[in-house]
């Protein structure tokens, strides 16, 4: 009976421990994927390093003298769990802060060091449990492996479907660190044969206490990171104090973590606190919207952007816009411009992230810009994945506006694929057109080879999907209008004047697009469109 309890106890702990191991791996993969430009490579390398360090951990355990004696194995495991717990508290925040100072390959190296440490510690666990169970269980190898696999599976569901989407990577990693600490205390009690004398409680409590306190530090830590990212980071250690004083004067960066992305609203209150990557604003209450720390929208320049896109686009479009579809554009600003046209009858807006819609409706500064467009009777908002929605869609539209972030991740690349564009074409009435953000000006003149390749690939995907006729327009903020039928795109400047501001009027010019031919981007042959981080 005693033996049964012992076996069950160790198997249960092994199960918990492998949940931690797999969770650490997944969280590390996620953090690196979002911080680097090439998530496929960084994810791959992280897995490889983690596996390698698991092997190293197992190897080290095999060589250590602790394996000879049950009590020392137990002690080793407790030490490993405590180290993991403490290290995990700092691991993810340290990678984030490191990303402020080092980029590219150096960041990968640093984060793989973190991975190596966590992996090696985790690697000790499995053989240690096998050793602990050997005297009690005949096929201890198989049983421990089974607990390990079960834990890994549980972790993959837990992390992917619950913890990371709702809590974000830092809080998720701290919860797992807490779990490691709990495991350490369980093992601790076992070591002393479950006797509950006073001081023994103190030690595991002391381990869990840092976890608890650090949860309280989450917001200050987050604000430090965000303000360093968007405004100024301390350049040396001695700089930290003065930078913190500076940060205290900067208004809070509003960060909303939705299941899909991090939404940041960054203010620029005066000339002194310019936002990194943006020109210094003399307008009070200017603010900027970032998605996953990539620039999306500036309250100063959004007017030119949206006026050009909507009024320029509709002016060039061959077909009158009665039924319009917007994919993305949850900020409601395209809708705002569209509503100025009486002939527009319905606007269907498909946005993935409900948080963006809430912000557009309720955030004081953003809703002022939006002017309640999303609540207009002509607008129908659907919360859905753009790709899936278009795939199922059977309606046809006169004009389709696509307002999505640039394809910097695997998820976004999907929305610039041949398959997606075929769905778009299917959703267009004959002679209908699609308009989307296409930074022709920046890319064609100043862009790197890889940036040019991204957009060349998008063009190739459009052509292959049956949308080969296009024109680029907009000298400062540029867009592409695309249609399946041949059309001579020309501005009708007489019709244009009334609805736009002077600033935008200067933007309404056709551009020539000359790019080296590239391969189309398909789900079955992704070209992994990626883009260099601009600023920040």
């Amino acid at each position, binding site marked *: 009976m005693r033996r049964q309890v012992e076996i069950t106890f160790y198997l249960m702990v092994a199960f918990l421990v492998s949940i931690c191991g*797999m969770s650490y791996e*997944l969280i590390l*993969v996620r953090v690196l*994927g979002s911080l680097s430009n*090439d*998530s*496929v*490579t960084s*994810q*791959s*390398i992280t*897995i*490889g*390093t983690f*596996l*390698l360090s*698991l*092997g190293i951990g*197992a*190897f080290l355990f*095999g060589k250590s003298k602790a394996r000879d004696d049950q009590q020392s194995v137990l002690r080793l495991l407790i030490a490993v769990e405590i180290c993991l717990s403490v290290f995990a508290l700092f691991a993810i925040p340290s990678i984030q802060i490191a990303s402020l100072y080092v980029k590219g390959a150096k960041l990968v190296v640093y984060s793989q060091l973190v991975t190596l440490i966590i992996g090696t510690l985790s690697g000790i666990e499995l053989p240690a449990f096998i050793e602990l169970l050997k005297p009690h269980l005949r096929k201890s*190898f*198989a049983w421990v*492996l*089974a607990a*390990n*696999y*079960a834990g*890994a*599976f*549980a972790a*993959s*569901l837990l*992390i*992917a*479907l619950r913890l*990371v989407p709702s809590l974000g990577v830092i809080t998720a990693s701290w919860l797992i660190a807490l779990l490691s600490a709990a495991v350490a205390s369980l093992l601790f009690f076992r070591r002393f044969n479950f006797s509950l004398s006073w001081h023994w409680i103190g030690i595991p409590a002391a381990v869990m206490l840092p976890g608890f306190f650090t949860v309280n530090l989450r917001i200050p830590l987050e604000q430090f990171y965000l303000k360093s990212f968007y405004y100024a980071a301390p350049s040396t250690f001695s700089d930290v104090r003065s930078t913190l004083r500076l940060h205290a004067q900067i208004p809070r960066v509003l960060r909303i973590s939705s299941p899909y992305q991090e939404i940041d609203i960054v203010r620029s209150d005066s000339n002194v606190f310019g936002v990194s990557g943006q020109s210094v604003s003399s307008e009070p209450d200017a603010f900027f919207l970032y998605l996953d720390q990539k620039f999306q929208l500036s309250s100063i320049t959004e007017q030119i952007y949206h006026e050009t896109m909507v009024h320029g686009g509709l002016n060039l479009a061959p077909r009158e816009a009665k039924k319009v579809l917007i994919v993305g554009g949850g900020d409601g600003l395209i809708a705002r411009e569209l509503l100025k046209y009486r002939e527009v009858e319905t606007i269907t807006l498909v946005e993935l992230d409900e948080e963006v819609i809430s912000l557009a409706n309720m955030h004081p500064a953003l809703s002022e810009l939006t002017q309640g467009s999303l609540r207009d009777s002509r607008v129908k908002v659907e919360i859905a*994945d753009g*790709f899936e929605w278009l*795939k*199922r869609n059977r309606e046809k539209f006169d004009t389709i506006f696509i307002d999505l972030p640039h394809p910097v*991740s*695997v*998820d976004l690349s*999907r929305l610039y*694929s041949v*398959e*997606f564009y*075929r*769905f778009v*074409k*299917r959703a267009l009435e004959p002679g209908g057109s699609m308009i989307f953000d296409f930074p022709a000006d920046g890319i064609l003149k100043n862009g790197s080879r890889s940036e040019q390749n991204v957009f060349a690939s998008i063009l190739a995907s459009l052509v292959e*999907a*049956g949308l080969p006729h296009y024109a680029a327009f907009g000298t400062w903020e540029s867009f592409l209008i695309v249609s399946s039928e041949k059309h001579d795109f020309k501005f009708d400047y007489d019709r244009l004047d009334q609805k736009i501001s002077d600033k935008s009027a200067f933007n309404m010019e056709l551009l020539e697009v000359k790019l080296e031919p590239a391969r189309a981007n*398909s*789900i*079955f*042959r*992704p070209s*992994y469109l990626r883009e260099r981080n601009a600023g920040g």
Partner: protein
Amino acid sequence: MMTGTRDRLSLWNSLIVLTGFCSLVYELIFAQLLAGLLGNAFARFATTLGVYIVGLGIGSILFTSKDEPTDRKLFFRAELVLSALGLVSPFLFVAFNQVFSESPHRDLGLVLSTHAVIFCVGFVSGWELPVLTSILSHRTGDGESRVLGFDYFGMFLASVSFPIMMVGNFGLLTTLFIVTFMNLSAALATFLVLRERTRVEMIALLGLLILNAAFLFNIRHLEAWMSLVYAPPS
């Protein structure tokens, strides 16, 4: 006689590296492919890894060793089944998408069916390692840790070469069919050292090799065809 044994030993060792390599590449390819077909790359990555690992686990536990010739035959068959599954999987994914496209339980059905395929691949992969372990332990006494070490090494190689292969413009399907080809080569190598060979097995092996080569030579057509089935033009 001695040389023969030593050569065979390094054959089995390199097979361990190869199976570790192929395991991880399968998993990474499925994660990417399903990210494209189903969306939400991170969740796909995690669920494919989880299901694959469960398959690995159940596969490895269900294996019981008998004797060396039976083990080798089992390994040969496992490699055949694995390659066949690998060759057929992308078509299955697209087919599932067609089957479930109009159904109300579309998302659940798609996720379950695609992950069932991944589970099977994991399950068969799970056989590989214990079989190789037991073959090696028939020869040397040293089973587990050596095998694990080589296996991890194979996986590490995979993690480094996968992005190179993908970023190096091979494409998802080409990489998949290269890996299935590697499994078939392992099957071939094993076939040549088997004591009893049946005609059926030889035909199966040759058939799969020819199919695999055919896929590789017509890869661009296959990609275009799958794209058209998945997203038909209006």
